[in-house]
């Protein structure tokens, strides 16, 4: 496990080879190399994980410093990697889910012209994400953070010949820049206070009292602003729904399982800082809670199958931030870990549906697909049940852990938001299931001709992910089943510094669990009534509340508001500056200089008569003057 720092290396090397030699490599070789490099990383992650279990908590984290990377005066950063329970879980999720998605992509992208480019980017993304989670200081983390942002941009705009895809890529990149600007300010501030970006040094400084509460709040909020960009939280979530323009496996890997959860990882990594500043925790929890419910309501009315899942992702990350906000960092990470399985499963299954329907995304043109897709349907159903929070599947355990902690900390408002979000989650997921797989067939005749289940290379990853969506939750059983039942919490204990954990009586724990179960089943039942039992109900509801429906259907007009408030003034302002300053002042100066030079040249050009004799006369004159000077 001393070799854990090699984990990012395999996909990185593979990406490099594909980028340089990809043109000459056969397609089959590209598939094998891309998948096996991630599998090798996964193997090494597993080895490191088991190695970590044998290491005593006192000697954590395991640090591997390769060399001094930046040394400029008092600013120092090493190229160093660290392994502790948190990064170990992250590497397992990234490489495990990443490997399955690589395999799935072999089938999904088989007929795409950009096949090699696609796997280059995907490998590069895995590399950057692994750097992000294994880096031992803020600088290296930031390198990974920007690297995944770049790959996200490249992959959203993968089909760049499509105008909307190119625009979506730009939108994602620019919105992320806003968050990243704050994030890098936060890093600078921490450097200013601590004098180092090393996580151990930062934690040591916090424990040593280098931060006052106000300073901690400032640093934590700046970092969290970066997280709202990357993890698509209010107010910077707008890029994620548009990011669905990318290939579906990309949505599964980057925009559901790994990259968008980087913000949660970062908050958990800096948990001492966030715990020290109570206010920052309040903000994190509130933003998470509001996002969870806000995004869930937007998911209710969307007809694009991937967009529903995108809003669902935003909402679920909101849950993770509720967990972090109430100090239950391990619950947040636990939800990150279970969410990676069931959300990538849902995306991949949605991709499989699209594949079967020749690229159809609109749920109004689906329906009754249950009997045509005998493997996609049950796996999708498992994912939907898991995310809805039905007991005994992974999503239930993790969501319940967060809500219980929110309640135990006395943050009843967040708990209520989460519970309401849970009803909505169950509702929109089963709306998706019923509209897609049940009911009458509303297929295009063209799509119906080509209707087929996906090849095995795509369905096997679905089955594996479905298996983990069921069992992954058993790593973190609720406290009611015994104090020691939550293996996940105990594993993370060396990283997550114990806060003031609220404790509830067994009775109230059971009550909370019952409440979670009740809302989940309630949401599913409402969806059943709306879309299966009496399919006219949705129309009646819409007719009853047209204003609310329009508001939700147009996503609260947030894009329009942002356009009017930020984009338009920026574009108009830039244009005004361009017209007045660039065109008149800068261009005027440049053109003026050129004109003056030209005029002077023209004025002096009479000297150049082009006649040999004139030149000779000037030489003679020069000689005479020179001689006269010498002689007299």
């Amino acid at each position, binding site marked *: 496990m001393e070799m854990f720092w090699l984990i990012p290396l395999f996909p990185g090397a593979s990406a490099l080879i594909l980028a340089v030699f990809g043109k000459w490599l056969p397609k089959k070789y590209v598939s094998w190399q891309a998948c096996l490099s991630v599998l090798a990383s996964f193997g090494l992650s597993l080895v490191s994980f088991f190695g970590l279990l044998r290491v005593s908590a006192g000697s954590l984290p395991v640090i591997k410093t390769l060399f001094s990377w930046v040394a400029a005066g008092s600013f120092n950063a090493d190229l160093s990697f660290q392994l502790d329970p948190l990064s170990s879980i992250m590497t397992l999720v990234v490489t495990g889910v990443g490997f399955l998605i690589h395999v799935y992509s072999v089938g999904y992208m088989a007929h795409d012209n950009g096949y090699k480019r696609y796997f280059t980017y995907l490998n590069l993304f895995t590399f950057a994400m692994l750097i992000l989670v294994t880096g031992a200081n803020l600088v290296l983390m930031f390198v990974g953070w920007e690297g995944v942002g770049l790959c996200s941009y490249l992959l959203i705009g993968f089909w760049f010949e499509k105008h909307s895809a190119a625009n979506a890529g730009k939108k994602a990149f620019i919105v992320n820049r806003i968050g990243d600007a704050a994030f890098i300010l936060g890093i600078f501030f921490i450097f200013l206070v601590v004098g180092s970006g090393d996580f151990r040094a930062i934690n040591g400084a916090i424990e040593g009292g280098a931060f006052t509460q106000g300073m901690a709040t400032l640093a934590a909020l700046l970092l969290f602003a970066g997280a709202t960009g990357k993890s698509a939280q209010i107010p910077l979530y707008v890029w994620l729904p548009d990011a669905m323009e990318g290939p579906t496996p990309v949505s599964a890997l980057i925009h559901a399982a790994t990259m968008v959860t980087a913000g949660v990882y970062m908050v958990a990594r800096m948990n001492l800082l966030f715990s020290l500043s109570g206010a920052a925790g309040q903000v994190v929890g509130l933003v998470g809670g509001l996002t969870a419910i806000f995004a869930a309501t937007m998911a209710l009315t969307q007809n694009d199958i991937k967009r529903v899942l995108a809003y669902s992702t935003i909402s679920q990350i909101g849950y993770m931030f509720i967990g972090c906000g109430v100090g239950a960092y391990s619950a947040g990470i636990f939800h990150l870990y279970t969410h990676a399985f069931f959300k990538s499963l849902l995306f991949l299954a949605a991709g499989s549906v699209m594949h079967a329907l020749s690229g159809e995304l609109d749920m109004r043109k689906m329906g009754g697909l249950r009997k045509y897709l005998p493997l996609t349907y049950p796996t999708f159903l498992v994912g939907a049940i898991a995310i809805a929070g039905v007991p005994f599947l992974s999503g239930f355990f993790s969501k319940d852990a967060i809500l219980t902690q929110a309640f135990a900390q006395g943050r009843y408002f967040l708990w209520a938001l989460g519970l309401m979000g849970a009803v909505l989650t169950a509702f929109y997921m089963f709306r998706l299931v019923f509209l897609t797989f049940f009911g009458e067939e509303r297929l295009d005749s063209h799509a119906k001709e080509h209707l087929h289940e996906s090849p095995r290379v795509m369905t096997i990853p679905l089955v594996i992910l479905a298996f983990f969506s069921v069992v992954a939750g058993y790593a973190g059983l609720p406290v009611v089943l015994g104090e020691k039942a939550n293996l996940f919490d105990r594993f993370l204990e060396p990283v997550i510094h114990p806060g003031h954990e609220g404790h509830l009586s067994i009775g109230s724990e059971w009550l909370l669990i019952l409440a979670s179960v009740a809302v989940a089943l309630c949401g599913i039942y409402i969806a059943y009534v709306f879309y299966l039992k009496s399919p006219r109900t949705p129309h009646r509801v819409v007719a009853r509340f047209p204003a609310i429906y329009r508001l939700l259907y147009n996503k609260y007009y947030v894009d329009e508001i942002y356009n009017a408030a930020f984009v338009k003034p920026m574009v108009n302002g830039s244009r005004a500056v361009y017209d007045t300053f660039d065109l008149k002042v800068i261009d005027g100066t440049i053109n003026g200089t050129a004109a003056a030079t030209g005029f002077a040249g023209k004025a*002096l*050009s*009479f*000297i*150049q*008569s*082009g*006649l*040999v*004799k004139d030149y*000779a*006369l000037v030489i*003679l004159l020069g000689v005479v003057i020179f001689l006269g000077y010498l002689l007299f």
Partner: protein
Amino acid sequence: MIPVGWFFGLSILLFVLGVIGFFVKRDLITMFMSVEVMLNAANLAFIALAKGSGSPAGQVIVFFVITVAAAEAAVGLAIILLVFRQKRSIKAEDMDLMKG
């Protein structure tokens, strides 16, 4: 024995003749010949000085000048020939391609 000063006098006379010829004549060949006259005026001055001072340096320089003048004559005549082919004229005032 003729005094050195006479040689200088002749040299200056030749040089001034060359300069006048260069400016008065209009065709390139005559101008070119005038340049040669000027060169040889300088050569004569060198030789006279070498004889007067007893140092061989001036004579050596004259050899160099003669060599260079030979090369220059070849190149110069070739240029004049080419100019004539282009313009059907060897009048100096017709060559004003470089007029600003």
